[in-house]
């Protein structure tokens, strides 16, 4: 994948105040899997995968996920939240090598 850490967020095109909104988000990330040698022993190294996903809305953390290597490459997360006020929604991905990848979307009411 070419753009490591590129975050995409999709929210419905029209939102009314108080709606429960389904958000779909995806990040480009290799999510390295455990590798084993010929004897079947795990090769010790720092595997690069996302361990934490934090969703922030209006400055407050709405939800956080702790993730493991069992999540696929280019992981996709979907969650719902109640849109009370217009403002930014951000999703931040942290990986094991210290990478922080953030995506932002402005929640506006139609």
């Amino acid at each position, binding site marked *: *994948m*070419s753009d490591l850490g590129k975050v*995409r967020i*999709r929210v419905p095109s029209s939102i009314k105040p108080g709606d429960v909104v389904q958000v*779909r988000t*995806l990040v480009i990330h290799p999510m390295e899997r455990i590798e084993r040698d010929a004897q079947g022993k795990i090769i010790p190294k720092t595997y690069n995968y996302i361990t934490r996903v934090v969703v922030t809305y209006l400055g407050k953390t709405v939800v956080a996920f702790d993730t493991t290597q069992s999540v696929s490459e280019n992981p996709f997360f979907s969650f719902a939240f109640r849109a009370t006020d217009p403002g930014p929604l951000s999703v931040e991905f942290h990986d094991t090598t210290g990478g922080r990848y953030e995506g932002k979307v402005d929640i506006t009411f139609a």
Partner: protein
Amino acid sequence: MRSVRRRLALPAIALSVLAVGCAVTERAMPEDADTPRWTSRAIPEARGDFRVLPDGRRAAIRYKGWTPADFGAFRTYAYDDARPEPAVLGATIPAGLSGDATKGRVLFLDRAKGPCTGCHLVPGDDVWPAGSVGPDLSTIGDRRLPDPYLYQLLWDPRVVYPNTAMPPWGATGVLTPEELVHLVAYLQTLRAPLPPERDADRNPFTRKTPVGFGDGLDPTNNPAVLLAEDAQAQWEEKGPAGRACADCHPGGAERAMRGVATRYPKHLKAYGRVMSLEDFLEAHGPETTGRPYAAESADNLTMTMLVKMASNGLPVTLDTASPEARAAIARGRATFAKRVGQRNHSCADCHTRDGGAGKFLGGRLLADARDGLTRHLPTWRTSQGEVWDLRKRVQWCMTPLGTNMLAADAVEYAELELYLTTFDDGKPLRVPGIRH
């Protein structure tokens, strides 16, 4: 095509096949004889090649999971395949055979044979998924049709219905006379009253039609969008010949390629043939960047998607007026109507309203070619977990129908694709799609 012909001349091939190969060379190609010859550059699985097994039989080189069976006895879409449709033959039940309805029912449902249930509904909760291309046979026994008549319909229905889409099962050897007698016995047992229907989706006449898979351009919905973005890096990256796409097409793929894909497939003088974007890339890529872009390779598919995505939203604007285009479209139309293979099917059998379009083939709703089938290709296939272009889709369609596929970049497919794309003329491109 040329490479196919050369192979046919190999002494290892049976004489009858050799005879076809010789007859073929005398036929004029549709294109001008002076134009450059086209040799397939497709990946091995997509080239329609064969290898000779130790026992002398030929095995087709196809994708993993596709049958390697050689259907060389049946005609193909190749322009130089001048064999006629199998002859229409009457048949009578051989003496001494008696039908077993239980065996007949197993054969009716056998996926390795027809399956008959792909087109015809019969009672039973284990009948899944039944199709509706052919008539509902749930009470065929009540019609008291004579056994010899039913036997004839199964052996070769063209004797009674000259334009039927039903294959000549006996004449092409898919089912033996003994098996057909069992099937006749089973059909005669299908009488009213019918058992109560427990699942509306079992019956193709009451089944809900599929709703699709959402927005194909949403990267969180369609993995193909992410794959296409991979080609973005290759657009900028210099190939073995020291040049990158971006060197000659500046301003980024999105701007430089805007509108280009709307004009394909088209006839290109330099190559003397109709080409889809995939075909052109396969010739143009090596000539400029030095990268191969073999037909149906990952590089070809992703670059095709990248170029097509630059035209998303723009209407298809085909050349349908030039003499070359008109001749090619006419040949494509003929291919669409040509009956090929063991099943003796044409595209039109399934993909026109007079045939199966709008009906279920097994669990799949058949599309009408006149509604336009090309604007979303290459497309993500949810059932396969990979991107397919139109060529692979057509090659796959051919294989279970008992037809040796042509090379992915064969001119026959290009002209068929051109004909199919005429139904999309003026409609906006939307690549990549997402389909079953």
